[in-house]
């Protein structure tokens, strides 16, 4: 359970006013419990891909399906982690995490148990009764991840989740996410413009062209990770030093630079 499929998906924004083609014939299959990252230049439509899986937007042509069924509306089987956290400011950490469970109609003892588990998983136990504004950005994003994980979703959609965090916090969160993905694997669609992050986290990385976005190439990271045994290293900087990592990163980097043309980073 939890496979995602894009089948010749186009997206045109404002079709009545001439229209801007954001996505052009996207084909992508994500297997159950696979972690796929999409990287691309800004404005290439990578977030739009995620929003269509979430059910926030509909394709202009083609089909986006989860478990073989076309997506029609948002739902708790596809939990989203937003770049700007999107926590409810008037709810405590516990209440934020609880909302999805209450919507499922679960009884209080089970909810409490699952909340406790999610708090422990994200090291939030001592902040359960804090309000979001009392927490740092990194802590807020932990809450958002806990809120998504606690629903035990088939699919986890992460839209540049660490983009708003400072560099140190970002590294900690990336390591945590890898740990989480090992303990509790999910189908993950992860959007980012940080190439290292994508290579470090994902099983496969899809590189997109600039607008109108198409999938330019898909790299298999997992086979390299397993062959070179990246997981023997605990720390992200040690993995990033490996020749095989550098090779992949540089390849993606060059691929993206072609897209940015003369204005490349």
């Amino acid at each position, binding site marked *: 359970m939890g496979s995602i499929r894009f089948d010749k998906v186009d997206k045109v924004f404002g079709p009545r006013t001439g229209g801007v083609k954001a996505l052009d014939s996207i084909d992508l299959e994500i297997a159950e419990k696979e972690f796929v990252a999409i990287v691309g230049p800004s404005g290439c439509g990578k977030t739009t891909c995620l929003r269509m899986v*979430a059910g926030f937007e509909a394709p202009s042509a083609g089909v986006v399906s989860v478990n073989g069924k076309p997506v029609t509306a948002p739902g708790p089987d596809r939990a989203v982690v937003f770049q700007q956290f999107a926590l409810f400011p008037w709810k405590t950490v516990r209440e934020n995490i609880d909302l999805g469970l209450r919507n499922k109609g679960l009884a209080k003892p089970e909810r409490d148990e699952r909340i406790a588990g999610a708090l422990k998983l994200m090291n939030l136990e001592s902040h359960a009764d804090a309000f979001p504004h009392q927490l740092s950005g990194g802590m807020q994003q932990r809450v958002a991840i806990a809120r998504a994980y606690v629903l035990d979703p088939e699919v986890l959609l992460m839209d540049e989740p660490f983009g708003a965090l400072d560099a140190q916090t970002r590294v900690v969160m990336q390591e945590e996410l890898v740990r989480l993905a090992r303990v509790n694997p999910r189908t993950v669609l992860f959007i980012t413009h940080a190439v290292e992050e994508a290579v470090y986290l994902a099983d496969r990385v899809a590189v997109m062209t600039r607008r109108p976005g198409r999938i330019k190439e898909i790299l298999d990271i997992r086979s390299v990770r397993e062959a070179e045994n990246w997981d023997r290293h605990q720390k992200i900087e040690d993995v990033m030093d490996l020749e095989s990592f550098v090779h992949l990163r540089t390849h993606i980097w060059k691929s993206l630079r072609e897209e940015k043309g003369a204005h490349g980073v």
Partner: protein
Amino acid sequence: MRDTPLSLAERIGWGALGLAALLGTWTLLTSSGLVPRPFLPSPGDVLGRMIELMSAPFAGATLPQHLASSFQRYAYGVLLAALIGVPLGLLMGWFRWLDDIVTPLFDALRFIAPIAWVPFAALWFGTGIGGPVLIIFAGAFPPCLINAYRGARFVEPRLIEAARMLGTGNLRTILEILLPAATPSIVAGLRVAAGLGWQSLVGAELIVAAAGVGFMMVQAQANVATPTVMAGMVAIGIVGMLIDIALRQGEAWLRRRRGLEA
């Protein structure tokens, strides 16, 4: 000029200066004989009349009794406006079809001044409690509805998306997402509503036959008892200010609690 904050003492000082200038000019006009007394009673006359009215009845009741009677009507009117306006505004902010039904009607009706309802208020709801309450309601209702609607309509879209992906139903979204998100706007609306409701009071009490500050003023006007009319005006001004101060405190408390400002 606006960017230098004043100290509390300075603010009180300037405020007192404004008040002193008003009272000074007023005293000068009346005591110099430039304006005849019945035309404009002096501040002393008004103050004296107010003190008298604290214990001596005029038009059947003392000033505090008139005020209490007015305040009761006022509270019913504003409460009714809030109880109908806020939920309706939130529902309109969430359900597009309701918005499409109510907005055109409301946009036409809200430009009719509360006082224009006086004949019908008396005709439909009588001159006891119903009629005056309707007029105050007419004054207080629009800001309740508009602010709840705007607050609900302009909730950060990300929060709505987060609620939807968590599987939140309509009722729970309205109560737990729209209502708290719209609360600052609703509270600001209630403050405006409280003010407009109080302003509608004199109009509402044109049709009252028993008691109320507005009633007292109408009676005094008929007797050309100008100090009494002005005493009523001052009382309305002071009570209105007190209501606003109380609501402002409530609003500030709410903002602090929500962590919106230090």
